[in-house]
């Protein structure tokens, strides 16, 4: 049985320090990706349905990651871990497809061309996020 106090302390650190910087950056991307998807789907969904649905997915993933980092604890960590993993897969897959198959991606998403429209931050962010979550994995208490 791990000592509850020690585990909670390790998890609490997830929300402080660099964790708070990540919270801020993920929050910015949650807002921009969701707003972008909202405008795209609301005004010209028929033009590129696949790209716009991916925009919406990206927005949801960023919202989930932001929420996970804000909640903290083992539950928040699990949410953040899941969303950062989907985010990494998303930016790699969508980034590759958007270069290989321009026809399927006539309009940009946050993840198009590995996030070049956003200074490649979407490509770097999941690595930093996963590294941070890995550094603050819950450890067994020393008894």
């Amino acid at each position, binding site marked *: 049985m791990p000592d509850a106090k020690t585990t909670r302390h390790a998890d609490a650190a997830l929300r402080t*320090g660099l964790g*708070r*910087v990540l919270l*801020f950056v993920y*929050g*910015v991307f949650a*807002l921009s990706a969701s707003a972008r998807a909202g405008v795209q789907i609301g005004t010209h969904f028929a033009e590129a349905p696949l790209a716009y649905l991916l925009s919406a997915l990206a927005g949801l993933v960023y919202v989930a990651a932001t929420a996970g980092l804000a909640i903290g604890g083992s539950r928040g960590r699990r949410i953040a871990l899941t969303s950062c993993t989907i985010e990494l897969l998303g930016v790699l897959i969508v980034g590759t497809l958007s270069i290989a198959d321009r026809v399927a991606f006539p309009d940009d998403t946050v993840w198009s061309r590995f996030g070049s429209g956003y200074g490649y931050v979407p490509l770097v962010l999941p690595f930093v996020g996963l590294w941070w979550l890995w550094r603050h994995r819950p450890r067994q208490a020393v008894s």
Partner: protein
Amino acid sequence: MPVNGPLSVATIIAALLLAAWFLLRAALDRAPSRADLLAAALLGALVAVLVVVAVVGLFDGTRPSDTATFAGYLITTIAFAPVALYLARMEPTRWGNLILGIACLVLPVLVLRLQQIASVTGA
């Protein structure tokens, strides 16, 4: 459009100078001082003036053809510095200065986007 005036240029330059300052402070492992927080608050005030001028411009002259997006960016822009300041105050370490530095890098992008959207006006 008002967002293309000298006030925008001043805001962008001030934000970039402060970004360099905050990133330097973070690199030197300094927590935000009172002066740092005050500087960020003053930049927030400058941005608020810019947004108010832009909102007044909406009711007096040509409107951007994408008014909804423009309004969304205006809300984001005016809220941006206060949110960063709130988070930075909770983080009295070098990371607090990094939050302020990132905010000061994003603000010019927001102002440039406002200018882009404002420059497209409906017939």
